[in-house]
């Protein structure tokens, strides 16, 4: 056993660490560095689902019924598979309309109905307070277990002021008030609280896995050892199978547990708070939807091993299975591990209490107390011009009352049946929200009357078939009405309603309550036409993804004064905040504060902001009190909707138009760029041409001058000069011809004489005309052509020009005497490939791309030619739909080739 001061000291230190984390996170958020703005923290905060009921209770459940603890976690996994669709829609709706609680969500959907908000809050309150008590009980019994000597009976303190649980509850009140109700914010977001909850989720996972690993691998030799020993104890075998003789309808119970936990995952107030209200960015959901189930898998791996180990160690039916997590380490003398496990349990319990209390206090304040005060004019309280402090104190009071109620329930119920089974009973209570909640999100036809009827009937049925029997079984009521029916009417037996037998109590209650709930909801919704306000809210909720905020229709008509609206907002949100919000709104509209028009948009804006602070139904009432409204008819709603959709169509058309304008501008800009570059190219071309012309002209002129100046020049000398002049003149002529040729081809003025061309003949013709030059240099020319080559539609003269160009190029770059040039022709059905291979000096890789550009000759020391041959050849080949290439390595020779398709264009 551990000393009481040590356990209390550690527990309080742990809570102080929580304070520190929450405080730092709040500070960081003020400085604009959010700690919780990432999917990891978001997923961890969702793990507030795992309460002390999970932490301790799963093991107890597993010890009693084997794998039956699992559906409670498989259900949320199923919920998360659809999370990206469903939770994202919940977030979008809540963020768009400033909804801060599940009661507000349902009330807002059905025309901002006050009575719905109150009913949902009431159901939550009844369902949740025992659940809060359960968390306190977990801490209390854990504490007793740690501080009581083994094998002696646990003694609970006789007076509440001696009870450490009471002080822990008070500390939790302090924490929740500090981080859950510090200031009034129309978004209801609490950075510090979420950071602390994420931290708690890490701690409880570590605590539980530490015990699991210790038990499985230290006390036993791994999982298989535990299971082997468990199977040796005969009747534990039943824990590993599904259908047992005792429970032939197990699959129905299994299904109802899955359904129940799936719904609770989405509808429990604390889940709604962390998943929807505290969501920073809906994109985080994408990662969180699989990380959260992964967390559930991890925290459940060791549940069954710990349960079995406890049963083996202490004997079946001995010891409290709910506390095996603590008693196993204690029993084997590892007290520090038990302490760690206890802290894990404390984190599970406190996390739940903090978030649940924050969420339910918001509901209590906004949906029960505020409307009640507003209706009675607040006994003068609400006359003052700034109500923010009053609202905050109501919330703080609500938190205190909630936790005290939880504590009282815990003290009164103690070990009663009502507390042990409360987890699932609570789940069944919030499951009643499902029809009107999801019906409201996806079905426009659901009405306020339907939701009211469904919720009320479901709640009554839940109370009668599940809550009441559980209270009776705790010994606080005569149980005869369970066994014989009220007033002896057997048909009304709460656990066999109308004689329905064979189902377990939970499934029975869930079936009746949900069935009646759905029947009433759908039936009454279809019975009467919805009002205009219900219709308009239905449209806003169901189609939330179809509209962007700026084109959303505003269902309001009437007269208002900017001043009245502003004053109203100041009363509930404070002067500074309201002025800031109004300024931001005006800026968004492109106006100054003075230019603001009291139109429907402004009224809607004020109402939305107020909703965040006091709930949508109260906000509605308050706005109604300062403006002069004209009641909306169904036709008005349709009219406004039509206008909005027209507006949307206009804005869409405008968007499209501006998009096409942008596109046209981009095209024009590109064309302009191209023109500029073409102009630049032309200049380049001109300067290149003149440069090329000047070189031979200069030498002609120089040599001619020399000859003129020196009449006594030797004849041989003169002959040599005249030879050069002639060669240069020929080069000039060639150049001019090629420039003209190039210009013609590029300008599209070239004449093409397309005939049937025999490429083999052309190659032979080219080889013949070049043979003299090749002989002269001592270069061998080899032709590799097939026997027959099918004809091609092209211009024979032009192709001859190409081959000649390639042959003369090759000749220039091969060494004399040892030079070898090979022309290879390959005929294929799709076209003809011709390659001219030489063993010359080759072309460096960086030069290869340049050789096809005008006046760019490979920089290889051999400066000959005009620099237009290859560009012209390429133009010709491309004219006939082919392409030209070069493969070469420096020193390895070069291979120029081209391909001409047979289906060349005309």
């Amino acid at each position, binding site marked *: 056993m551990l000393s009481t001061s040590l356990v209390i000291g550690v527990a309080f230190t742990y809570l102080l660490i929580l304070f520190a984390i929450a405080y730092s996170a709040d500070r960081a958020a003020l400085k604009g560095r959010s700690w919780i703005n990432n999917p990891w923290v978001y997923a961890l905060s969702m793990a507030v689902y795992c309460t002390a009921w999970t932490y301790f209770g799963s093991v107890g459940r597993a010890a009693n019924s084997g794998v039956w603890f699992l559906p409670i976690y498989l259900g949320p996994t*199923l919920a998360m598979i659809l999370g990206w*669709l469903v939770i994202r829609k919940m977030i979008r709706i809540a963020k768009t309309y400033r909804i801060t609680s599940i009661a507000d969500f349902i009330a807002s959907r059905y025309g901002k109905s006050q009575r719905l908000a109150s009913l949902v809050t009431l159901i939550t309150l009844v369902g949740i307070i025992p659940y809060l008590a359960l968390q306190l009980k977990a801490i209390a019994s854990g504490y007793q277990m740690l501080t009581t000597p083994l094998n002696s009976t646990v003694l609970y303190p006789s007076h509440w002021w001696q009870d450490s649980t009471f002080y822990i509850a008070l500390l939790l009140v302090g924490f929740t008030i500090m981080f859950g109700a510090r200031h009034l914010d129309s978004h209801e977001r609490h950075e510090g609280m979420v950071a602390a909850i994420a931290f708690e989720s890490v701690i409880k996972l570590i605590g539980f896995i530490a015990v699991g690993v210790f038990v499985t691998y230290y006390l036993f030799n791994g999982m298989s050892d535990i299971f082997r020993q468990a*199977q040796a104890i005969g009747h534990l*075998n039943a824990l*590993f199978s599904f259908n047992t003789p005792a429970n032939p309808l197990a699959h129905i119970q299994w299904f109802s547990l899955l359904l129940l936990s799936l719904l609770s995952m989405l509808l429990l107030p604390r889940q709604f708070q962390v998943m929807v209200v505290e969501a920073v960015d809906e994109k985080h959901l994408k990662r969180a939807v699989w990380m959260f189930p992964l967390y559930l898998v991890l925290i459940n791996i060791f549940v069954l091993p710990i349960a079995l180990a406890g049963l083996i160690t202490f004997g079946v039916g001995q010891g409290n299975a709910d506390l095996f997590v603590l008693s196993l380490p204690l029993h084997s003398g590892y007290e520090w591990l038990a302490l760690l496990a206890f802290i894990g349990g404390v984190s599970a319990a406190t996390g739940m209490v903090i978030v649940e209390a924050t969420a339910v206090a918001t509901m209590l304040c906004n949906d029960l107390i505020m409307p009640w005060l507003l209706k009675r004019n607040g006994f003068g309280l609400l006359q003052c011009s700034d109500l923010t402090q009053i609202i905050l104190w109501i919330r703080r009071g609500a938190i205190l009352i909630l936790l005290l109620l939880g504590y009282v329930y815990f003290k009164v119920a103690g070990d009663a049946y009502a507390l042990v089974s409360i987890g699932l009973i609570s789940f069944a209570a919030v499951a009643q929200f499902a029809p009107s909640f999801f019906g409201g999100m996806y079905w426009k036809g659901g009405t306020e009357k339907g939701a009211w009827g469904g919720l009320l009937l479901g709640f009554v049925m839940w109370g009668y078939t599940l809550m009441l029997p559980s209270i009776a079984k705790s010994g606080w009521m005569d149980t005869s009405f369970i066994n014989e029916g009220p007033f002896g009417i057997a048909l009304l037996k709460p656990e066999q309603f109308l004689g329905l037998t064979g189902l377990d109590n939970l499934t029975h209650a869930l079936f009746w309550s949900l069935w009646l709930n759905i029947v009433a909801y759908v039936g009454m919704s279809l019975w009467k036409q919805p009002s205009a306000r219900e219709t308009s809210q239905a449209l806003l909720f169901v189609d939330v993804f179809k509209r962007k905020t700026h084109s959303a229709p505003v269902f309001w008509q009437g007269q208002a004064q900017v001043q009245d609206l502003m004053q109203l907002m100041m009363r509930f949100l404070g002067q500074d905040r309201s002025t800031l919000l109004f300024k931001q709104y005006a800026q968004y509209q492109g106006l100054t504060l003075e230019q603001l028009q009291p139109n429907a948009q402004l009224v809607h804006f004020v109402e939305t902001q107020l909703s965040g602070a006091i709930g949508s139904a109260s906000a509605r009432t308050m706005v109604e009190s300062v403006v002069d409204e004209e009641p909306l008819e169904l036709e008005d709603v349709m009219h406004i909707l039509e206008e909005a959709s027209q507006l949307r169509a206009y804005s869409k058309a405008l968007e499209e138009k501006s998009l096409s304008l942008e596109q046209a501008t981009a095209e024009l800009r590109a064309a302009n760029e191209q023109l500029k570059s073409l102009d630049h190219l032309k200049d380049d071309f001109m300067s290149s041409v003149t440069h090329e012309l000047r070189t031979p002209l200069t030498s002609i002129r120089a040599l001619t001058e020399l000859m003129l100046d020196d009449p006594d020049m030797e004849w041989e000398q003169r002959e040599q000069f005249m030879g050069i002049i002639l060669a240069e003149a020929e080069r000039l002529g060639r150049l001019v011809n090629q420039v003209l040729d190039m210009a013609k081809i590029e300008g599209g003025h070239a004449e093409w004489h397309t005939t049937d061309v025999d490429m083999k003949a052309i190659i032979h013709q080219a080889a013949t005309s070049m043979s003299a030059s090749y002989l002269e240099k001592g270069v061998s020319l080899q032709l590799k052509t097939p026997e027959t080559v099918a004809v091609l539609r092209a211009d024979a003269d032009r192709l001859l020009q190409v081959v000649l160009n390639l042959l003369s190029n090759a000749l220039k770059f091969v060494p004399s005497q040892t030079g070898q040039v090979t022309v290879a022709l390959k005929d294929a059905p799709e076209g003809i490939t011709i390659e001219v291979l030489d063993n010359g000096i080759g072309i460096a890789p960086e030069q290869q791309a340049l050789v096809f550009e005008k006046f760019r000759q490979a920089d290889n020391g051999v400066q000959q030619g005009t620099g237009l041959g290859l560009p012209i050849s390429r133009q010709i080949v491309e004219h006939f739909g082919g392409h030209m290439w070069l493969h070469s390595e420096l020193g390895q020779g070069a291979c120029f080739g081209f391909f001409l398709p047979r289906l060349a264009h005309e």
Partner: protein
Amino acid sequence: MITKPLNQRLIGWFLLAVSLLNFPLLLLWSHSVTWGGIPLFPLGLFIVWVVLVVGLAWIIERTPDED
């Protein structure tokens, strides 16, 4: 109404998950056999569970969603 591939895949995966975790497919694991020393029923459930989570992660991380 649901046209985006991601939404369709998620709904498909959900339906598969519901069927895998319910009667009668659940009975496939309900035999008194052990696998590596661990009874088939809890082991099978955990395997299905892990597969469902990994599959969900794979679907949602790999499918582009334009919204």
